[in-house]
């Protein structure tokens, strides 16, 4: 069991981040129903699930889904099955439409992302979710940096990024126009290093692919066909944290879809990608 902050000590940076995320999750659950969450089994959304268990005193009170392209690494599926049982999650697998169903003019990484976008659209339509909780962070990618904690989406799932609502202090826009939904981003302010320090402090399980094997490890975990391991000797969580303090590689360097064109990621996100 993690050591809690003592009753008199000032809060640490991780305590403050955790408290803000708990507030956001409770705010979403209070004001937006039905609510669901996406879980990619990556380090971020797994840490977020852990925080959700804290926010809701031990159980996650909404369904969690993987947008499943069938292309995740076997280790990822095994990790999922273990945690679903361990944490008693209401897990609903969402099979994404096949690659043949998406725009063939997109580059390969974009096609995989488009499958997930379509999968998410179908999931939201079927479950009638008014809110989706996601584990994205500002420091991952420059367009994510400009997103809101409560981010309204149009009825077709697209992101009206030119005209986002204000949010200040702890006041967010917690409603959408009919047919639209809200993306809720409780980890938006966290950085990659924060996530790993928190994972270490709380002893949160994580997928073994993040650890280096034969001089390579996954820094960002995606489909096996479009995500590649990066050179690294970090074979423990301590080594990962040490590596992040010195690296000049961007986190998503191993993600093909980000780099296909200058606006590749913006177009994906404007169209409804996470």
């Amino acid at each position, binding site marked *: 069991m993690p050591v809690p902050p003592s009753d008199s000590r000032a809060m640490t940076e991780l305590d403050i981040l955790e408290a803000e995320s708990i507030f956001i999750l409770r705010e979403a659950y209070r004001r937006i129903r039905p609510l669901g969450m996406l879980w990619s089994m990556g380090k971020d959304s797994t840490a977020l699930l852990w925080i959700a268990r804290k926010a809701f*005193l031990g159980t996650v009170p909404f369904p969690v889904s993987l947008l499943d392209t069938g292309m995740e690494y076997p280790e990822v599926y095994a990790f999922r099955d273990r945690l679903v049982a361990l944490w008693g999650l209401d897990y609903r697998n969402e099979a994404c439409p096949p690659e043949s169903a998406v725009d063939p003019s997109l580059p390969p990484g974009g096609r995989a992302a488009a499958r997930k976008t379509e999968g998410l659209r179908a999931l939201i339509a079927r479950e009638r979710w008014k809110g989706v909780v996601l584990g994205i962070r500002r420091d991952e990618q420059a367009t994510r940096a400009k997103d809101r904690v409560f981010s309204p989406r149009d009825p077709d799932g697209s992101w009206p990024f030119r005209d986002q609502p204000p949010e200040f202090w702890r006041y967010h826009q*917690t409603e959408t126009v009919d047919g639209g939904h809200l993306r809720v981003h409780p980890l938006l302010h966290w950085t990659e290093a924060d996530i790993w320090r928190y994972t270490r402090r709380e002893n949160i399980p994580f997928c073994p692919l993040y650890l280096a094997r034969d001089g390579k490890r996954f820094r960002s975990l995606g489909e096996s066909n479009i995500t590649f391991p990066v050179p690294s000797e970090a074979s423990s969580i301590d080594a990962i944290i040490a590596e992040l303090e010195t690296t000049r590689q961007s986190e998503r360097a191993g993600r093909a879809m980000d780099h296909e064109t200058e606006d590749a990621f913006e177009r994906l996100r404007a169209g409804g990608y996470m």
Partner: protein
Amino acid sequence: MNTVPIVVAGHVDHGKSTLVARILLDSGHFADGKYEELLAAARRRGIAVELSFLLDAFQLERDQAVTIDATRVWFASPRRRYEIIDAPGHVAFVRHMVSGAADAAAAVLLVDAAEGVSEQTRRHALLLALLGLPTCAVAVNKMDAVAFSEAAFRATASAVVAMLSAAGLACAGIVPTVARDGDNLVRGSARLPWYGGPTLVELLDALEAPEARERPTRFLVHDVYRRGDERVLVGSVASGRIAEGMTLAFSPSRETATVTGVVRFPEARHAAVAGEEIGITIDRPLFIEPGDVASELIGPPTLARHVEADLFWLDAEPAHAQDAFVLRCGTRDGAVTLTAIRSVVDVATFATDTADRLARNDVADVVLHAVRPLVVDLEGSALARFALYRGGRIVGGGRLRAATNAPAERPRSANVFASERRARTREPGFVVWLTGLPCSGKSTLAERLAATLAEDGVDAYVLDGDRLRTGLNGDLGFSLADRSENVRRTGEVAALFADAGLVAIVALVSPMRDDRARARAAAPGHFYEIAVQATLATCERRDVKGLYRRARAGELRDFTGIDSPYEAPAAPDLVVDTDVHDLEAGAAVLTDFVRALLLRRS
């Protein structure tokens, strides 16, 4: 040491995004390949390398060379880590600037050396002061455009100092910079030899956090969760501390209870400090709802029906006196009316003017009247600042400057529903949808519920399937398509009744899950599905209208339960089992549920 969030504000084109990117570049925080990526993006547009593209990630921002929305990046100085919030300077995006600046602990205000203090510089300074930022560091930028002249710097600096003082914002120091080339950001500048002061980053490193003041305890109840048989009040310790054994007063009722437990998962706790999100259990079954505030018995928050506030208005639609809003303060929502616009600040002069409306980006002194008492503080932050919502959209925010005391609110019980509800402006109603097999007891339960609510003084109306078929749905038969349409129309009508403020009670077999989901979608957030359960044998035995007998005899086809399916609700909001309960007991279960809803929703 914790990360310090800093917002960079100022007029459009004075160089904010470039300054932030240059600090990152010079302090070694560019990822590998990022500079080359920016070089390529600039070449495609036929321009020299544009550092601001690091932050201006949107194509539109790059093509028009303007920041639209705030972004955040991180860097570390020799002393500590910073989160830099790059706010847009254009007047069209003030709401995005506010969204970024509200999270900051201090500001960098950027002023173009040649252009000097502009209207937007003044507006940002005013907003920074209103957002409660204690201090700002000033960069007089583009010194190359004034030939690195000390006299030009001094002239701009003295104008800035005068402006900041008028805006009510402390100035931590003024630095001459050329952001594009990095002069006096991370490193000093050989081109500005007359300047002997700190670089911008050194100036930031010298800022000290204001001494944290000891404030009275405020526990903002965010929600009420059930854990086994326990009711746990979850919420934020906004200030002070919470410990087991402490006696708390809950506002607005001012009822008191003692803390029996501090709840965190997974660890056990006995106390919590300011900033923590926790749960508490108390020793008495008080009626507590989200938005209530717990405090020590001495020095509770103020209860107020009239408040005066400094307001920033962010919506494209103007505000007028007598407009109605929802005011969110802490975790509490309350209906308010804008009773007066006393004055609006003229940004060009900081003089105040009278006005009969608020336009986007106006800063004004206003009076608000609340229907139920607001729970506020004038000192401290969490309960002194608020946001206004209209039609679910966030339209403005501000800080309270005065509040008129109001008496404590009497704890509410069922028999005060009527006056409560009438007092409120256009309280939305909701739909109570009873679904179940024919003769399961839906209509009877609906009528009983309506009668009890009438005694409580609550306006309710029963939409009964049989009755609707004689009028509104008289053109529909019993084909599957017509049945589905019957449910659809009933759902739409129920949603309209709810919108008009009534409790719409629907009694309808509505056998198909999809049809009911559509009815729920017609009244999103205001729809409660009640599964009225009885076994087929019980229903058939009741057979009030002899329909089961006729169906069994083959006179009625596609009869739900006999030769047409009934899809029971997968996750109903309430189950009333009329096999187990007699009618009286079933009606009581339903009535309790709806009364609890009325309390929770008010």
